């Protein structure tokens, strides 16, 4: 089982986030954000009492939702036959969450068409990355490890290269899962953005087992 935090050469977005990963650096979340532990505690409490620092911040919210999906995956795996497989890497979820934290940052503004010259509408790069991650994670057996947008997203109609690196559950058909992820991401991007996707590459970077020992 490979280290899921180590980037695949085939899944190296060209933005600054990916640059860190390409150099093999550990993804480190900014110090001024809500910690993963706090997000985990908040999920444990059923998101009560309402925490505006988390719920009212788009970046924190994206991290919370991603963590919730990872936990759901962990539960599913515990219920499956993972007992027959080797023990999972306990840092696996933490590694993915490090990427989530980086990728949920606002990033660049991506323009959307507006019929009225008096209005400007756009979507943040962070929102698009979260969208990609959510779409990929929605495919059974897939977990998005990292995603990136390469190209001049600030220019309308500029061709964009979307890279998605995933981990696939042990035993699944890798090609099928990757194809489903590509379709799901393409659908989400079409519905929620107006970016011109020149290429959408999905790379299976790892095969995962359980994650229940990550303490999250």
């Amino acid at each position, binding site marked *: 089982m490979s280290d899921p935090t180590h980037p695949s050469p085939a899944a190296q977005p060209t933005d600054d986030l990916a640059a860190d990963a390409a150099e093999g650096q550990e993804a480190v979340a900014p110090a001024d954000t809500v910690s993963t532990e706090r997000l985990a505690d908040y999920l444990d409490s059923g998101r009560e009492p309402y925490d505006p620092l988390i719920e009212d911040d*788009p970046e924190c919210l994206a991290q919370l939702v991603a963590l919730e999906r990872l936990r759901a995956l962990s539960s599913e795996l515990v219920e499956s036959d993972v007992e027959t497989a080797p023990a999972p890497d306990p840092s696996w979820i933490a590694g993915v969450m490090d990427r989530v934290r980086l990728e949920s940052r606002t990033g660049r503004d991506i323009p959307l068409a507006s019929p*009225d010259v008096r209005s*400007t509408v756009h979507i943040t790069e962070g929102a698009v990355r*979260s969208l990609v991650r959510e779409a990929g994670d929605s495919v059974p057996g897939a977990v998005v490890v990292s995603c990136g947008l390469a190209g001049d997203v600030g220019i309308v109609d500029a061709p964009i290269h979307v890279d998605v690196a995933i981990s696939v559950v042990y035993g699944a058909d890798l090609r099928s899962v990757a194809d489903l992820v590509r379709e799901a991401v393409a659908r989400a991007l079409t519905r929620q953005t107006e970016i011109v996707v020149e290429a959408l590459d999905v790379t299976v970077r790892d095969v995962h087992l359980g994650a229940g020992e990550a303490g999250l």
Partner: protein
Amino acid sequence: MDEATTDDATVGAGVVPSGGPAADLATTLSQDQLDDLALELGVLVSETEGVARVHARPGAIEIARQAVGGLRAAVASVTARAGVGVPVEAGEAGGRSPALVTLAVTDDETRVVLDVAVDEAASGPAVARAVAARLLEHLDARGLPAPTIDVRIVGTSS
């Protein structure tokens, strides 16, 4: 340039009125009226189909200032003199934050800046355009000077 106004990423709704000819509608609005208008716009946005959440945009006051061409000094100095223009604190203790937008009103322009999260099932671009159109219509009806809207999608929500 008087920099007495603040632009704090941790606060949300901001109302930045400017001075100028007394006859102008913008300058006849009181701070309370502008605060109410900002909240009114936020509610209008939150009620738009496909909008899941309304978020205050960090740094929006500065964005609004810069967008109002040539009037940055007037905005800053007047707000300093009047002691207004400081963004309203976002949220109420222990409860959900009110829907928030940033509103900058000058003699010549009304600038609205906000972030939204859209429903997962909705079309993000369509929702953002609907929000902008709704706000423009509302501001036109209020007779405020040359409204311009800046809507940004910051997330999707299922």
